[in-house]
């Protein structure tokens, strides 16, 4: 069951959901034989030590899947594989050396947390509260939709709308639990500090929470 569940997410959100079909094509590319760029890294055996960390994961799959799906289609929709996309500059004018892939660190951290930690349903027994919304990827998709018109049809929410939905659904987010909430937002640091609405005085992500970012200061 665990394996099936992880495969479901992997198939849905991996940069190329058709990886099985194209694996034979990948073999013809000039990758070193040990590198399979279209396969998610599996946890290291030593990651089993993370089992002692008990996480309550908010059930937000609808939001997570939408963004991950859009990222998947963006990266692979026209190219068949992530590698082909990268080699051909799939970001279509954004920059040949930058594309959505470099903003996907948070997806890999999310995968590893879910794969390696103990997931609990009772919030009272949780060490931490994981918010599986891909905030950074959501923002990056917005930037890239400048250059990729079809991308605009793939994600249904603006980032502000996403934040507003999250605000309502994080029912265990209180001052006493804020420091144990884990958010994922691996974009440039100037984009952290999302507000629930324009002009709001305080940011949506509590400043005492654990935010996975790409640059601290």
């Amino acid at each position: 069951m665990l394996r099936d569940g992880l495969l479901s997410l992997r198939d849905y959100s991996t940069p190329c959901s058709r990886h099985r079909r194209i694996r034979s094509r990948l073999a013809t590319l000039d990758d070193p034989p040990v590198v399979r760029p279209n396969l998610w890294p599996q946890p290291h055996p030593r990651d089993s030590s993370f089992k002692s960390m008990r996480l309550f994961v908010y059930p937000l799959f609808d939001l997570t899947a939408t963004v991950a799906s859009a990222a998947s289609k963006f990266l692979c929709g026209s190219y068949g594989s992530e590698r082909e996309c990268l080699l051909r500059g799939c970001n279509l004018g954004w920059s040949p050396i930058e594309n959505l892939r470099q903003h996907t660190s948070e997806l890999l951290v999310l995968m590893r947390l879910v794969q390696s930690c103990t997931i609990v349903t009772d919030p009272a027994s949780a060490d931490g509260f994981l918010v599986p919304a891909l905030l950074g990827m959501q923002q990056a998709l917005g930037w890239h939709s400048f250059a990729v018109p079809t991308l605009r049809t793939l994600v249904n929410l603006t980032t502000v709308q996403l934040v507003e939905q999250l605000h309502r659904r994080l029912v265990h987010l209180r001052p006493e639990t804020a420091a144990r909430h884990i958010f994922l937002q691996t974009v440039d640091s100037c984009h952290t500090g999302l507000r629930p609405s324009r002009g709001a005085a305080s940011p949506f992500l509590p400043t005492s929470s654990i935010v996975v970012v790409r640059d601290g200061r």
Partner: protein
Amino acid sequence: MTAVEPCALYLRDTVAESVRVPPAPPQHLGDDLWTSAGRVHQKLRPLRRGFRYNRSIVVPHRLNLVAAPMPRDWASRTRPLLVFGAFGLSRHPGRLQLARAIWAAEHIAPGRVHVGGSVDSLASGDASHRTSLAQQARSASRSSHSPPASLAEAHDVARNATFCLCPSGDAPSLTQRLYAAVSAGCLPVVIDLYARAPLDPQRGYPFPSLVEWSQFVVEVPANRAAMPAIDATRRGGAERYFQALQREFAALLPRLQALESQAPARRRYMQSIAHLLRFDSPTMDKGQPRRQDAASAAVYEIAGKLGLRVARPY
């Protein structure tokens, strides 16, 4: 406590859940964040901090170089190039100042400096942009080399260089160049082009409990605490800061030349932690099972923030 498998939570019924998401009219994401994000690349002006997240976990970029192999010469005494740098000169005025300073001092290491505009500036197809860059290069009296034609080519050049310049991008964050440099076994020179008020005495790097960045990173400014303080409320309050930064640029090449003798030891340390800065590690490395990667390191850091003790990543 009830322990359940992850698939029993939000991972369950993936298809059914996704089908339930109703189609919505196309919307343009992120405009609001662009306008309020404070991206600074046209003017030299100080950044004022909005919010501080003291408990944030900094993780690396996921490299665009999917299959970049690790170099084999981590411990070699010298590399052909002293300095390599590829970056767009027009994205930030500080980058042009940096390039000019490097070109002006190039005579101290003739033929060993490869600094120029990058693929992002020249591959844009914008002829006026190219002309502008050429003019900039002429006004700086010379351009060391043609920029690399692709990211892969840039990586190949970096593998032959001792130091790789990693200036800030459009935002004050660390850029992918830092991790590409580590991947190439090239000692990163992290150049912070953004004046901030207040400026933290130390830069935030990924996994400070696992990686001793001072062992291999060369920082500009070298001493952040000694930089002129900025009054962000006054116009022109950052001038003294940027003047000090330019003095650091002018002294950078001699500084790197003096550090070159330490490069093999620094590279050996970098080799020992490089796997913690990559997400897409091969499953096997030289016939041995791979070591833990950046995702494992991130989970380790999160556990630390939660006050939990878990095994240190190998």
